[in-house]
């Protein structure tokens, strides 16, 4: 794939802090031009991944490329906007000075008019200190700083976490309008799923520092089925002799599929499966497409289920020697 069409490419990426691995063996691709949700529970490694992609540190293992460049190079920095968690700004700087900082530190590609336009549209007082702004105004200023840089990709770390629903809606609209106008790739993290609905067309799901799922949001949902039905009578309550699995045995018709998660209540079962073949309605069960929330929760609850990467997010196999070479 052309490097220009790939916003982020990670292969075998790992990041180790003193307390342990925050990211481990992460391999995925984020195609350019997408609005991608980065989802995972707290401590999944979302912030670590974003800060590495923003060039804030050196990965402990593997390799990471942003538009084909090492994220720590100036070339990559100029192409990436990053809004860190809690939206830091210099609290004693005025709005004007904050924008001037953007201009001074992004001399190659700063767009003063665009940044000022975003700030003015929200009636943010230009001579107020950043520390005295409301949550919405702060977010607007932070986004103005990001977009003034004219980034090809904008990464946001839980940008809406501290906003009330009204402002959240306004900021999401601003973000989407700006991103759409300039074709900016967006990667935004969250641990609250509803924030993403109707906004993201791509998903990257992390849990325990590993990639659990990546790909187009609608295709991910379409690749799975939610099967609800009654357990087969003969197998009901039967335990396997090897003791490896003590749960009830699902209908054998589900065998060609990967069961991500199964729940049994009495003689009823409900299973989320990744289809390996067409899965028709059965005599004793019904099949439906899971909602995005159901899908995400199932994957996050079942760490033993294999990760799913759609072809656009998957990396072609790379020889081990080449990987080692890149890591060094």
């Amino acid at each position, binding site marked *: 794939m052309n490097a220009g069409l790939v916003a982020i490419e990670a292969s075998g990426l790992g*990041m180790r*802090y003193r307390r342990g691995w925050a990211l481990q063996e992460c391999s995925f691709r984020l195609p350019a031009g997408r609005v991608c949700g980065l989802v995972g529970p707290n401590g999944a490694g979302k912030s*670590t991944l974003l*800060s*590495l992609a*923003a*060039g*804030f*540190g*050196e990965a402990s293992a593997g390799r990471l490329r942003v538009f084909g460049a090492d994220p*720590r*190079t*100036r070339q990559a*920095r*100029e192409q990436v*906007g*990053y*809004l*860190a*968690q*809690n939206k*830091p*700004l*210099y*609290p004693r*700087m005025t709005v004007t*000075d904050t924008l*001037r*900082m*953007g201009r*001074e*530190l*992004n*001399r*190659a*590609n700063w767009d*003063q008019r665009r940044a000022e336009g975003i700030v003015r549209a929200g009636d943010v007082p230009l001579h107020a200190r950043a520390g005295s702004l409301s949550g919405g105004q702060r977010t607007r200023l932070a986004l103005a*700083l*990001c977009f003034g*840089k004219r980034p090809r990709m904008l990464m946001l770390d839980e940008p809406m976490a501290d906003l009330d629903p009204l402002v959240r809606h306004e900021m999401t609209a601003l973000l989407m309008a700006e991103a759409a106008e300039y074709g900016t790739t967006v990667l935004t993290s969250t641990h609250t799923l509803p924030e993403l609905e109707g906004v993201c067309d791509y998903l990257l799901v992390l849990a325990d520092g590993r990639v659990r799922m990546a790909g187009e949001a609608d295709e991910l949902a379409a690749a799975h089925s939610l099967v609800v039905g009654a357990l087969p009578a003969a197998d009901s309550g039967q335990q396997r002799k090897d003791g490896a699995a003590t749960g009830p045995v699902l209908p054998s018709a589900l065998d060609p599929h990967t069961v991500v998660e199964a729940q049994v209540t009495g003689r009823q079962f409900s299973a989320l499966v990744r289809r390996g073949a067409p899965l028709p309605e059965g005599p004793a069960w019904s099949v439906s497409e899971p909602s995005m929330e159901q899908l995400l929760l199932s994957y996050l609850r079942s760490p033993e289920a294999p990760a799913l990467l759609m072809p656009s997010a998957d990396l072609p196999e790379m020889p081990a020697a080449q990987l080692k070479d890149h890591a060094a």
Partner: protein
Amino acid sequence: MSAATLERETAPAQRKTGRELLHGMPWLVWRQHRGAVWAGLALLVALAAAAVYLRHGTTTFVQQHDIAGCTLFSGPERCAENQEAIQLYRTQYQDLVQILLVVVLALPYLAGLFVGAPLVARELEAGTHRVAWSQSVPPQRWLLHKLLLPLAGLVLLCGLAAWLASWVLAGAGQATLGIYWYSALAFAPTGPALVGYAALGIALGGAAGLLIRRTVPAMVATLLALGGVTLLLQFLRPQLASPITHVSKAVPQLAEDSWVLSAAQRSTAGGETFPANLCADARGDALRNCLAEHGATYYHTEYHPLSQMRQIQFTEGALCLGLAALLVALTWWWLRRRAL
């Protein structure tokens, strides 16, 4: 937006660019520390005023009472009649000059504490470093600007302050005033060593800030480390230049402003010294005989004359600067390796 409003909006912006002297990281550093810059300049003006007042007061007093080159209990003959004037001179000016020296001596510590330690620590503590790093400037470049620009400013400030203090002490006369260059109080603030300490204070503060990431603990660490280096260098100071060895029959009459390291020890003609308790019990002729028996009929003295003052000060300053450079390099390397 109409053409008229566009014009109205861009015109002031263009006028402004004509006045903008600083760009990029230097602008950000200036914007963050302009308060400290004004405070430093105000301090420098106050120091200069105090120095001019003291220099004028002391030189006038010395001229009026003809006590130039005099000291208590020694010096040229004319001084014997001026002892009271010297006493008066010291009561009037010694404390004032000492206060000036203390203030100047405190500069590197204040710099390390209130400029160096918060430089990086406050940003890491508040997370604001992420704002700067999200722009196009790489963190290493950010760090070097954050450290080296304030460091250069403080080197300049301390250089000027040390020059002022040295000017006052030279005008007042070390021996007459009773404040000698080799005393712990006067050595650093009157010479280039102060510049080295200032650079070291900033470098230590920056390193502590990056390692500890919290402002107040970083300040404490900076103060402890700088104090430790000061004590160590004070201990090494006599060795920073080779002292002059003087062997003579009589107890030598050294210049009043010589830094005597080992005073008048009994020795042989070759300079071989004896323990202080040699012939301690003997008196009169017995003592003379006892000394002659050991061949200890000479006095051995080691000292630094005033002419070696600058050499020692420059060496100490260079040691501090070298240490500061090493620390900045280590800090830079540490930031390269770490993710924050």
